[in-house]
């Protein structure tokens, strides 16, 4: 597949980054062959990503030549980085050249476009399932070494579905607004490479002038965003900006407030653009559902319908399918993009398909009479913070581990995680917030520490999180 794309679109520009590097599909073809020659065969690589041409070149190489990469953010916290390297023993590290200094023991064997390849002392040979193509973290970064195992079929199938429902063509120019190691950001890259489009790469935030200059100079046609992105855009008076090249905007990574959904749908309608709300998870490669733009205003607040070639349904407590409208059940997805399963250690990379195309999403939803789905809650204890999944029990464990003899309970709503503690020492409260910001790489604004006399528990010692809700701001 990649072979065809690289040949068919050889004269097109594939990647243009904010540092000034521009690569055609033909250059990607040649450079990836060169990089593969250096690696020499199927193995495991850790790729430390940035939204730069060099970073995407590595990714294309790995996918094309069946080298399995673990995609991580180049800004990953050092301790977690070292922990992951120790667990998975990658034979190579692919990283920005400034980062190479941190690994002076390893030999640099290749360098191009600001990225380099280091050979580690770990074995080249790894026992990996033949269909395993890619490993991603589960969008959160709470110190967990858990990775999602994606197959080649998963990646291709999802990219094809996305290109189909977004009606992507060769003249699209999406601009990066999300990290490429984040499943949503990566899905934008995958689906646009598939159609031979040009991807504009930058790590500049949307609050920076450079971002908008890069946007306008290159006539970007689309971008994606998590709920926070759209809140921010509204404050940035986005509705007043002149952006003639912009064709469509997508939203995923958590539920957008219905009001904001409606405002952006209206803006899109009035300006002849499209606003497409979507739904997905790393466990489904990326996308599972989308709300067609023509229904965006009418069905605001909805996550839409299954993507092409996928199927969504609701399951009741007995495991039966709910057929009636407005009854809440667990959302189940079926499709070729349902990933193989998780990996928690090197040996897990040999595991085959554990899900067989069926994913229990853990999200509770209902369906309206027209078959459109609406998320109403979650089965599991996690929050989405700025689009990143954060597991509340894991955060609790991390805090208890770091701060000895502390009693705490974590709860909250998306973009606001509360840590309830039984100490009123302000100093410790600040330390906890900074600890969490450091560990998760997410702004401390998302974390609030609150003092309570005691953590409410039942007779069996189980924390009663519901009783903490009254303390939310």
């Amino acid at each position: 597949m990649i072979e065809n794309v690289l040949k068919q679109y050889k004269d097109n520009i594939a990647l243009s980054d904010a540092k000034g590097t521009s690569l055609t599909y033909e250059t990607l073809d040649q450079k990836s062959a060169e990089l593969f020659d250096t690696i020499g065969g199927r193995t495991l690589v850790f790729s430390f990503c940035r939204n730069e041409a060099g970073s995407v070149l590595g990714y294309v190489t790995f996918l094309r030549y069946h080298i399995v990469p673990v995609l991580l953010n180049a800004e990953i916290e050092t301790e977690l980085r070292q922990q992951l390297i120790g667990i998975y023993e990658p034979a190579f590290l692919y990283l920005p050249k400034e980062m190479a200094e941190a690994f002076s023991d390893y030999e640099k064997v290749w360098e191009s476009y600001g990225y380099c390849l280091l050979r580690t002392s770990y074995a080249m040979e790894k026992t990996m399932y033949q269909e395993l193509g890619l490993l991603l973290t589960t969008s959160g970064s709470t110190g967990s070494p858990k990775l999602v195992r994606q197959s080649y079929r998963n990646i291709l199938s999802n990219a094809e579905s996305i290109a189909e429902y977004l009606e992507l063509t060769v003249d699209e120019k999406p601009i990066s607004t999300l990290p490429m190691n984040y499943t949503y950001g990566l899905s934008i890259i995958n689906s646009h490479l598939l159609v031979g489009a040009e991807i504009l790469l930058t790590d500049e935030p949307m609050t920076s002038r450079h971002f908008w200059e890069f946007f306008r100079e290159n006539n970007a046609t689309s971008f994606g965003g998590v709920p926070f992105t759209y809140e921010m855009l509204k404050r940035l008076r986005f509705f007043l900006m002149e952006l003639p090249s912009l064709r469509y905007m997508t939203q995923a990574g958590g539920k957008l407030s219905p009001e904001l959904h409606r405002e952006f749908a209206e803006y899109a309608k009035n300006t002849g653009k499209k606003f497409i709300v979507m739904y997905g998870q790393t466990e489904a490669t990326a996308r599972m559902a989308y709300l067609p733009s023509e229904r965006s205003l009418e069905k605001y607040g909805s996550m839409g319908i299954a993507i092409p070639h996928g199927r969504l349904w609701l399951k009741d407590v007995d495991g039966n399918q709910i057929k009636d409208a407005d009854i809440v059940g667990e959302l189940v997805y079926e499709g070729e993009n349902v990933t193989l399963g998780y990996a928690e250690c090197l040996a897990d990379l040999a595991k085959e398909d554990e899900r067989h195309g069926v994913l229990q999403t853990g999200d509770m939803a209902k369906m309206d009479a027209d078959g459109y789905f609406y998320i109403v809650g979650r089965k599991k204890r996690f929050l989405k913070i700025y689009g990143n999944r954060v597991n509340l029990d894991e955060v609790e464990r991390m805090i208890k581990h770091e701060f000895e003899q502390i009693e705490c309970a974590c709860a909250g709503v998306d973009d606001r995680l509360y840590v309830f503690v039984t100490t009123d020492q302000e100093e410790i409260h600040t330390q906890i917030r900074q600890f969490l910001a450091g560990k998760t790489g997410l702004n401390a604004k998302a974390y609030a520490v609150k003092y309570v006399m005691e953590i409410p528990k039942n007779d069996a010692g189980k924390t009663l999180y519901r009783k903490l809700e009254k303390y939310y701001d």
Partner: protein
Amino acid sequence: MSNLEKYTKIFTESFEVDAEKAKTLKYQDVEAWDSIGHMDLIASLEDEFDIMMEADDIIDFNSFEKGIEIMTKYGIDMNA
């Protein structure tokens, strides 16, 4: 509290730095001043001084010092 003191306090609280450090702070100098911290800073300033900033000013607001210039533009007397 003078306007400059109020302004400085918003910086020290938003980014958890002391007043000395705040005075030389630039966008992305500290981890807390990312795009999320930035929007929070703008919201706090708008609330405190009862103003509504233009998008260009929000985007140009890239340091403590530049911010003073922008606040002045909105009629906030930073010497009062």
